[in-house]
């Protein structure tokens, strides 16, 4: 019985959840502005055109999305400096639980085709990715953003089994011809059609 209790303890602590630090710096302070707060900040600029309710602006990438409710906005202000990540990070809640959207951008002008080529090489050489899961499709957002959607699956080892995830990367150029990547991650078996639709329906260059 003692052995059983010990095993229970090992299982419990072995399976203890790790909460991610979404920034690159372990000492990052995360603040979570609500969508309304962002909206209020946007509305303070009287000259700016009116934006839809719940618009999230990724300043560095110069794009915006309207993700709707059930998203936690994580602002990693310290780690974002000098990093390719664009704040905020969108972390799914409620119906979007298990989904995450992160935006990255290059510092200079870059071609989407070059990005796809590097991405393909990296996906195919990464030991955690699933072979032959790399897929490319063209996409056009309702607001005229044209690019390529890359999709691939990867495995994360968890206790007795592995869990399969799907990464979808929307690659396109912003108004300054910098390459922007919207990295949308979720469980491979989770229906992500609604979120993908949201990206295509609301993605705009700012």
């Amino acid at each position: 019985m003692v052995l059983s209790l010990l095993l229970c303890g090992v299982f419990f602590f072995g399976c203890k959840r790790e909460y991610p630090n979404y920034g690159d710096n372990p000492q990052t302070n995360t603040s979570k502005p609500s969508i309304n707060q962002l909206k209020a900040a946007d509305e303070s600029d009287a000259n700016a055109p009116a934006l839809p309710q719940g618009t999230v602006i990724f300043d560095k990438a110069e794009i915006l999305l309207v993700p709707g409710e059930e998203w936690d906005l994580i602002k990693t202000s310290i780690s974002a400096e000098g990093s390719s990540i664009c704040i905020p990070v969108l972390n799914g809640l409620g119906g979007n639980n298990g989904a995450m959207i992160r935006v990255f951008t290059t510092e200079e002008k870059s071609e989407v085709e070059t990005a796809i080529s590097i991405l393909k090489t990296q996906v195919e050489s990464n030991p955690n990715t699933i072979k032959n899961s790399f897929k490319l499709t063209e996409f056009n957002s309702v607001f005229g953003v044209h690019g390529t959607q890359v999709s691939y699956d990867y495995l994360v080892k968890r206790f007795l089994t592995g869990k399969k995830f799907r990464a979808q990367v929307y690659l396109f150029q912003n108004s300054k011809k910098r390459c922007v990547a919207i990295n949308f991650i979720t469980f491979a078996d989770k229906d992500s059609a609604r979120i993908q639709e949201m990206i295509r329906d609301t993605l705009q260059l700012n």
Partner: protein
Amino acid sequence: MNPSDEQYFFDLATKVIANRASDGERQEFEALLNQSSDHRERFEVFKTDLIVAKDIVSLIDAADATGAGLNEKQLERLQRDVDEASSTPGHGKSYHTFYLIILLLGLLFALAVGIFINISSNRTLALTADDISTPDEIIKIVINTLNNR
């Protein structure tokens, strides 16, 4: 039952088991057994012991006769007889079996709890740092490579 009565009871029992009791002695013995459930119980235990002892003695006789000792099969049989004779609660084979079952049940319970927690953690939909590390690493390499061109 006083000691002399007890001795008489076992003498009769021995004769009955050995089929050497007369009709009168057999009837008397039946009457003794019917007198008390304790008598019947003691007779059953005595009969079992005697059968086991007879079995063991026959094995030892066989070994003495051949002069080669007991072979593996005979030793196994002897061990089984001894185990059966000593299988009382708190001692012997049944005691070990009981604790073995408890241990196995404990292990099964621990395994079930582990599997349950694992399934729960897989169903917990919030992504962890581990979950995003692969695509994070890949996209950062892509962006850094583009930046360094």
